């Protein structure tokens, strides 16, 4: 487990960037990093997703970020050389800052970029939504006023919006339908299970990919491995190598 600020800095993200990605106010992230408050489970999951790490990789309560690191990945402003100090080569070439040159005006409208064609996914989505209303591709093309292959990205986006609004009006129950919550972004269930087995000093039988079987008590675990104490000593199993495992009764019978 690591401090939030340490992971963020390793990923070369600013607090603002992390805030944007995770959808958590920057001020709250700063409080988490300062160790002023523990990270709630909900926000821990959001942060883990945004940082692309496992939820168990982040310490729920950070040790305060050292002041010298709090500035983030941006470079601090360069101080002027002290009297008698040799200026750097760049400074010797440019003893005084050059006057700011006004930025050239933006290119005229006629140099605007050509329209971007619609994404394949947008066209697929359009066809899928049209199908709900019994519209064929040619019906859809009549509505959009051009072949789907010639739609630009904004045009496809507008057409999608119109169809979605139509669904919301005509089939409000469908528009409100939500996907089921799938706990795919967290490893918490397995980690909670392992913690319970470790605390209960349970003996667990592991079956590996190659058919090897190992039995022992869990003495430690992380997102990627489990360490067990066997008769021969401690063994760390890479989770990738594990097919399945189950607790074993004292008499040697699986439960």
């Amino acid at each position, binding site marked *: 487990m690591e401090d939030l600020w340490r992971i963020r800095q390793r990923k070369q993200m600013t607090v603002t960037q992390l805030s944007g990605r995770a959808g958590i106010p920057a001020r709250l992230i700063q409080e988490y990093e300062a160790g002023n408050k523990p990270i709630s489970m909900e926000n821990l999951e959001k942060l883990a997703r945004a940082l692309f790490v496992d939820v168990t990789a982040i310490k729920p309560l950070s040790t305060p970020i050292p002041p010298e690191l709090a500035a983030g990945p941006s470079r601090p402003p360069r101080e002027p050389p002290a009297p008698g100090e040799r200026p750097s080569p760049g400074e010797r070439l440019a003893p005084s800052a050059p006057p700011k040159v006004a930025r050239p005006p933006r290119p005229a409208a006629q140099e605007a970029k050509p329209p971007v064609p619609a994404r394949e996914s947008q066209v697929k989505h359009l066809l899928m939504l049209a199908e709900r209303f019994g519209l064929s591709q040619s019906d859809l093309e009549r509505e959009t006023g051009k072949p789907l292959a010639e739609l630009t990205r904004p045009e496809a986006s507008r057409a999608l919006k119109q169809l979605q609004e139509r669904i919301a009006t005509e089939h409000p129950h469908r528009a409100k339908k939500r996907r*089921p919550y799938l*706990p*795919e*972004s967290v490893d918490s*269930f*397995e980690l909670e299970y392992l913690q319970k087995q470790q605390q209960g000093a349970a003996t667990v039988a592991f079956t590996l990919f190659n058919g090897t079987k190992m039995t022992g008590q869990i003495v430690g675990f992380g997102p990627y491995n489990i360490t067990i104490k066997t008769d021969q000593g401690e063994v760390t199993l890479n989770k990738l190598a594990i097919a399945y495992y189950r607790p074993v009764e004292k008499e040697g019978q699986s439960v």
Partner: protein
Amino acid sequence: MSLGDYMRYLRAMHGGESTADIAKAVGIPTPWPINEIEQRYREVGSDELVAKLADYYGVPVEDLLWRRKLSRKKLSEFLDEASKKGQKARLFLRTGERLEGTLQWFDLGALALNLADGSGQVIIQRHIVDSWEIA
């Protein structure tokens, strides 16, 4: 089995090296594209990278490419539905075993099944599950 789960399986069979080691071996600067393939649910990974990985693992590139169309969510959706309806799930593992039972929980890496034969609970790593059906 989705491309992500299959890649984890291949990595396991290849000695369980880290994705950073694989990135170095296939000549890409960071392991993130490989991590993404293993962990994300949508279709990720360029054809070029998938071809490099197929070459690295010594498997046909087609075997990886068709799996890219499979979403990791398919297994999750199946498990979710089976769990809500109280149906028994039958899982076919890459070890050749077949396990049947009621789902207790599942997450990103594993699932817990209460075995139908009454022999207790087993925790199965997701990347060992090859296919599934309602029992």
